[in-house]
């Protein structure tokens, strides 16, 4: 059997790739999903048929070329087919984050003049119904799971299977039109429109053409030698560009299999059952997983703990070398093989990462210890740097050149430049067409020569020739004495402590830096249990003086390490407080991809910011919170503020 697809773009659109895969890989699995406790699968042949009947159904409903079709729900094969079916009939799929509240959805749905919505279940349909008349252009809502919807009885609601049946019933009549539309499409047509989560302002609709998606997918697949036998677990939001590239772009280019978990909560179990060979997860995931392993090891017997510690220390030295094909002694190799047999392989199996050949993380900085832990187990975890506008890939780390503090070399086909202010620019076939209905933003982001501004400040690391990212350009500020202020740099250092979930460092245009801290309930809760500290709520634990003591120690360590960097030594944290609630996307404090919205937080907690700078050691506050269903409530708290030791920068000593 042919294992690697023909080199280079053989087809210019995703629907044409589907035809190619169906004829070349016909009976190999294209999609899997766990339903009712069993993995069901669809071959490429079956997928083509499913997509065809759906496309015909959409035609029968009157979908026209250029219509926007929103897809809302968690990762299901049917929803991926919906996107490809939309493309097949010349419409534009717009995946929407399924956990958005109706108010967030209305902006996107209205902005793209949505004509049809394909929703997963009652939860999503209810949101659409709630928006009701405000969706002026909406013609029909199609739902996947009929549960609870039987009584809705609205004519503009139709089930997914009914649409497919409708399409099949009129196949004779509609097929010529479908084939004509497929034939007329070319690489310049829009493949998908993805809304950026919008760290600032309203979300922007990023228009990506088939050329963009396929250029990014092909070059990255070749970069990592992805094969048709590979498999991925599609568990990240469908509205995120990464999922579109992994689960559609690369999957259609190489013909590998996309597995969908049973539900968000069963992801870890499903990961283990599937054992994917290609895996992406944000740093937060790897952190969480490591924390779980460590917590469980603490409960193990002392003998097991000893063995684990001994072999993990050994793996930290030898594992990465073996992974990078660097020379190691015969004895070391033998010991590693033995340890692999008794510890590393079973552990990787439990984590579901046993078969991972190519693993990626991106989005945020990852702690060196965390990164090294996975690599020492022999998991080829690498970093990449990308954004929606680039159809993900800007830089990637090649095998054998992996470091925790860089993001790699440009993906083949991508040109990179860094301007005087330190901002990173790129140019490639994969860079986006435009922002939908927003020519000003398009102009300010992408210049006439095709260079796209990333908004990130970075530099090329002299030692490795890799790109290093410092922070968002707009977040890199100046303190009142004119020294450099890079909050994310410090926040990332803080977040490497497992007990600190989130940190917000303040100090732009001010005389000193201060910080808000969010504790990690799992890690701190476990710590509290071990130290006999009783608590009844997150708020109580966050205000505990021993927790403060611990956090204060960590900040001191971070200050010490920051003070060693002469350029950034003024970013040491002088005062801090532990927030009484977790920063939450429902409250608008972080984005759905968990990026801190700095300005918003400074406004919302302006009373706390003031207290950090007026020398107070206690502050009363009342905060509005939004529940998942959109209702609002208030929580009040009395917060403690502490000072932390800061260190003289080395520069002044000399």
């Amino acid at each position, binding site marked *: 059997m042919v294992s690697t697809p023909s080199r280079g773009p053989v087809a210019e659109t995703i629907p044409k790739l589907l035809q190619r895969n169906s004829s070349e890989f016909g009976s190999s699995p294209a999609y899997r999903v766990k339903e009712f406790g069993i993995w069901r699968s669809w071959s490429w042949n079956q997928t083509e048929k499913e997509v065809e009947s759906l496309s015909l159904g959409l035609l029968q409903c009157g979908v026209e070329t250029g219509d926007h079709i929103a897809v809302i729900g968690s990762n299901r094969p049917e929803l991926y087919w919906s996107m490809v079916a939309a493309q097949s009939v010349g419409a534009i799929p717009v995946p929407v984050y399924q956990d958005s509240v109706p108010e967030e959805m209305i902006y996107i749905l209205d902005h793209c003049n949505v004509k049809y919505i394909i929703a997963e279940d009652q939860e999503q349909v209810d949101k659409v119904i709630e928006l009701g008349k405000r969706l002026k252009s909406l013609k029909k809502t199609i739902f996947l799971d009929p549960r609870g919807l*039987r009584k809705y009885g609205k004519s503009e609601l139709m089930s997914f299977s009914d649409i497919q049946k409708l399409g099949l019933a009129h196949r004779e009549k509609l097929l010529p039109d479908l084939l004509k539309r497929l034939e007329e499409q070319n690489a310049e047509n829009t493949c998908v429109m993805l809304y950026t989560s919008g760290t600032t302002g309203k979300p922007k609709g990023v228009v990506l053409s088939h050329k963009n998606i396929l250029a990014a997918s092909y070059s990255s697949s070749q970069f990592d030698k992805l094969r048709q036998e590979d498999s991925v677990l599609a568990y990240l939001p469908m509205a995120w560009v990464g999922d579109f590239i992994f689960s559609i772009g690369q999957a259609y280019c190489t013909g590998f299999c996309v597995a969908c978990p049973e539900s968000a909560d069963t992801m870890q179990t499903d990961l283990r059952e599937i054992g994917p060979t290609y895996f992406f997860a944000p740093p937060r995931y790897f952190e969480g997983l490591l924390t779980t392993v460590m917590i469980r090891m603490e409960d193990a017997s002392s003998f097991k703990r000893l063995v684990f510690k001994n072999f993990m220390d050994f793996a930290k030295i030898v594992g990465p070398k073996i992974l990078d094909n660097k020379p190691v002694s015969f004895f070391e190799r033998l010991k590693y093989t033995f340890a692999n047999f008794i510890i590393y392989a079973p552990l990787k199996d439990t984590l579901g990462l046993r078969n991972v050949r190519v693993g990626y993380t991106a989005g945020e900085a990852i702690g060196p210890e965390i990164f090294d832990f996975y690599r020492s187990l022999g998991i080829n975890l690498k970093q990449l740097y990308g954004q929606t506008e680039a159809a993900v890939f800007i830089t990637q780390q090649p095998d054998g050149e992996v470091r925790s503090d860089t993001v790699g070399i440009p993906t083949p086909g991508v040109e990179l430049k860094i301007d005087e202010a330190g901002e990173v620019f790129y140019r490639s076939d994969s860079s986006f067409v435009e922002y939908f209905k927003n020519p000003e933003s398009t102009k300010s982001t992408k210049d006439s020569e095709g260079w796209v501004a990333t908004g990130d400040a970075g530099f090329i690391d002299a030692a490795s020739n890799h790109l290093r990212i410092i922070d968002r350009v707009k977040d890199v500020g100046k303190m009142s004495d004119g020294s450099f202020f890079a909050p994310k740099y410090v926040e990332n250092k803080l977040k490497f402590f497992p007990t600190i979930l989130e940190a917000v460092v303040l100090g732009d245009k001010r005389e000193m830096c201060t910080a808000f801290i969010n504790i990690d309930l799992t890690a701190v809760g476990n710590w509290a249990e071990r130290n006999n500290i009783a608590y009844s709520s997150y708020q109580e634990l966050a205000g505990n003086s021993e927790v403060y003591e611990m956090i204060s120690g960590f900040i001191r360590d971070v200050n010490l390490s920051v003070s060693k960097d002469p350029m950034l030594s003024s970013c040491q944290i002088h005062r801090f407080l532990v927030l009484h609630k977790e920063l939450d996307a429902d409250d608008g404090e972080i984005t759905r991809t968990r990026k801190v919205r700095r300005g918003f937080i400074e406004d919302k907690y302006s009373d706390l910011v003031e207290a950090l700078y007026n020398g107070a050691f206690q502050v009363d506050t009342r905060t509005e919170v939004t529940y998942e269903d959109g209702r609002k409530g208030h929580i009040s708290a009395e917060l403690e503020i502490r000072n932390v030791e800061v260190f003289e920068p080395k520069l002044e000593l000399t």
Partner: protein
Amino acid sequence: MTIATQDAFTTDDGRLIGPTLLEVKGITLKFGGVTAIENISFDIREGEVRAIIGPNGAGKSSMLNVINGFYHPQEGEVWFKNELRAPMKPYQIAYQGIARTFQNIALFKGMSTLDNIMTGRFTHMSSGILAQALWKGSAEREEFVNREKVERIIDFLEIQQIRKTEVGRLPYGLQKRVELGRALAAEPKLLLLDEPMAGMNVEEKEDMSRFILDVNEEFGTTVALIEHDMGVVMDIADRVVVMDYGKKIGDGTPVEIRKNQVVIDAYLGISHD
């Protein structure tokens, strides 16, 4: 909603309420000198959600135990599907199509969620112990069918993530849900729920209410439940029986019950002389 006297009618929200499924007539239950239930009669119609409410010690659970065959009343009759029911053992009643959950969760703590719900299928298993042990022929076929039914229930109750988890390790709210799952596995005509929402927080109560209504709508199961939370009862029940000190003091739709002075007094604690 109006309670019509004819055999079947449709509620405002479009559900079909059928003829009487179960009727208790003049039930009196005594433990030695204590009268737990005194001369109570009411009916449960097919497809409805029927609630039994009352203060602590009113005899609600005893009433459920009578229906389900745990207790045998000294006086009175139980009519199920228009037949007078002879005194039976609880398992015989289960075969008749009545399943229940308990006030204090009664699951097999050391078994997984899946296995617990599977035990609810016992009324649908007919292969002998030898066939089961060898797992051949009818036993294997049966297991396939039963497992599929159980998986649909797991999907329905959204408990996939705890399928293989030992039940004893689960939080209370989830255990309650597993217990509901086990009762549903029997595919009952009549589902008895003894305080399904006791000890739950608001969110868990909302979830459970939704599941009970979904069971009623999707499977057409008749539900009789005991509940303390008046808000919940008034929201989800079609008709309510109110008990106090073993006597029936009210019977009607939630709207009627809310206006009933005797019921208000019982709940506000007027002295009983």
